């Protein structure tokens, strides 16, 4: 058993948050000086081989975060609600999979939710300064006061996690219970998990624990058991032990090789700078032309020609003006 984290203290002195503003490593749409010393990285490890799909994590998440999800309907499956929402930060996804090698049914149950990427696509995509922050312990958190509801983070996320709230038009996702972690607790889902399919600790400990679990799985015929800590996003602070780590996508479409979409990279990278340059260039070109070429003014002669034309006097023939413009050289 992974030793349980002691009960929380209700004493204000003991419950003082132990990380915060100064530990912000990345801040959306802002330049920050990363803290000189990084906090120990934390991680949540979800061991799918131990998960019984009881949804205690979902329940605990709703309770701790005081979220009010709608009561839905049954759609012929155990998954409920049918998708993550602004109130469902975590969701058990159930997949009935027949292992082609053994012909045995396997009920794959994956707890979906924010992966707390080391290289967070949401943060990268966010245009609002400080709406998304990454603490140096790895937690990626949304600061709702700063969220403008543009939903760019939704597009930035390689795992399709953040969800917009219809109520306040800000985007929600798992915070890794930053308020709990800040006082030395684990996230609510981890605390509740009956079988310790979810454990929480430092990332190094979690990797060791995963090794211990993977060894056990290999003795039970899961030759491809392994850790899911995708390097495409720089590793994650929520990791999975997968009995079939060679094919993550069988677990309710867990991305095989997640990375921030090149489209998002292009949009948040090159496009920004090129676009600003192009617009600047256009404005500058106009200015330069004005200075060099001067304004294009109507001459007295033009007016007279117009008068002649309208008064029905000898109208000039339909040809280029006989007079050159007031300024500029004649050929």
């Amino acid at each position: 058993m992974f030793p349980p984290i002691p009960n929380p203290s209700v004493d204000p002195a003991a419950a003082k948050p132990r990380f915060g503003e100064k530990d912000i490593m990345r801040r959306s749409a802002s330049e920050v000086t990363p803290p000189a010393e990084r906090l120990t990285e934390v991680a949540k490890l979800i061991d799918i081989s131990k998960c019984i799909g009881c949804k205690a994590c979902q329940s605990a998440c709703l309770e701790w975060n005081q979220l009010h999800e709608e009561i839905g309907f049954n759609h012929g499956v155990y998954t409920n609600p049918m998708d993550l929402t602004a109130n469902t930060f975590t969701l058990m996804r159930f997949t009935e999979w027949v292992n082609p090698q053994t012909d045995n049914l396997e009920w794959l149950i994956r707890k979906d939710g924010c992966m707390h990427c080391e290289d967070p696509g949401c943060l990268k995509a966010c245009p609002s300064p400080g709406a998304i922050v990454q603490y140096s312990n790895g937690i990626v958190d949304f600061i709702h006061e700063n969220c403008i509801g543009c939903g760019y983070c939704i597009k930035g996320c390689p795992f399709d996690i953040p969800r917009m709230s219809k109520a306040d038009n800000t985007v929600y996702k798992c915070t890794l219970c930053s308020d709990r972690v800040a006082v030395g607790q684990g996230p609510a889902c981890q605390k509740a998990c009956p079988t310790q399919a979810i454990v929480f600790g430092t990332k190094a400990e979690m990797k060791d624990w995963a090794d211990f679990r993977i060894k056990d799985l290999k003795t039970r015929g899961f030759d491809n058991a392994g850790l899911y800590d995708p390097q495409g996003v720089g590793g994650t602070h929520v990791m999975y032990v997968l009995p079939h780590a060679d094919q993550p996508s069988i677990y309710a479409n867990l991305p095989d090789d997640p990375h921030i979409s090149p489209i998002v990279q292009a949009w948040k990278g090159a496009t920004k700078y090129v676009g600003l340059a192009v617009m600047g260039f256009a404005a500058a070109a106009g200015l330069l032309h004005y200075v060099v070429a001067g304004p294009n003014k109507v001459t007295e002669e033009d007016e007279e020609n117009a008068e002649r034309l309208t008064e029905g006097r000898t109208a000039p023939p339909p040809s280029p003006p006989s007079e050159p413009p007031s300024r500029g050289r004649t050929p």
Partner: protein
Amino acid sequence: MTAYDRKAPEVPDDVEAGDAVHPGRPVIVDRYTVAARINHWITAISLVLLALSGLALYTPKLFFLTALFGGGQWTRAIHPWIGVVLFFSFMILFIRFFRANLPAREDVTWVAHSGDLLAGHEEKMPEVGKYNAGQKGVFWSMSGLIVILILSGVVMWDQYFFPYTTIEQKRIAILVHSITAVVIICVWIIHVYAAIWVKGTIGAMTRGSVTGGWAWRHHRKWLRELVGRRARGPRAPAE
């Protein structure tokens, strides 16, 4: 089409409703009706607001612009609605102006000589109707870009349209929207610059009229048509 048009097929369609010549010193030529001007300025203001709010979300360096709109949430919320205003306003403008902006034979010559124009040799340019090829270019660019912007904008308008597209489609839409926005801002810069550079132009969209000299100098064909039409006497308005 009016009876007049059928009787005088030689007259091109680039005379718009309300265009008229008033002899005098100087000659005054009505170029835009009140309705057209209001329509233009609604479009123009929308575009400027869209550019400002859009740029605020385009790069963190310009995020301060959200202050103009009452903060980030308001900027995000207002931007698409202004887009809708722009789209419909421009649609009316489009219906109003598209006929006069249809390509004409002289457009090719005009484009070929556009270097001369910039260099100040307007005398080398062919006589053009109500709009020259450059203006037509702005008009058609705006039309096309606005369609792209509204379409891509709807795809990324999560508050109402989130369920209808995939994330990947939304990502593409954002990229397209931002690139298009850059282009339309450039077109807008050209448009505004042209109005500033060519003196006497702005009055067309403020007072609604230009001087005869301005029309003679820049849109002589249009002027001739107006004068010719005046000579033939009163007639039914063109559309």
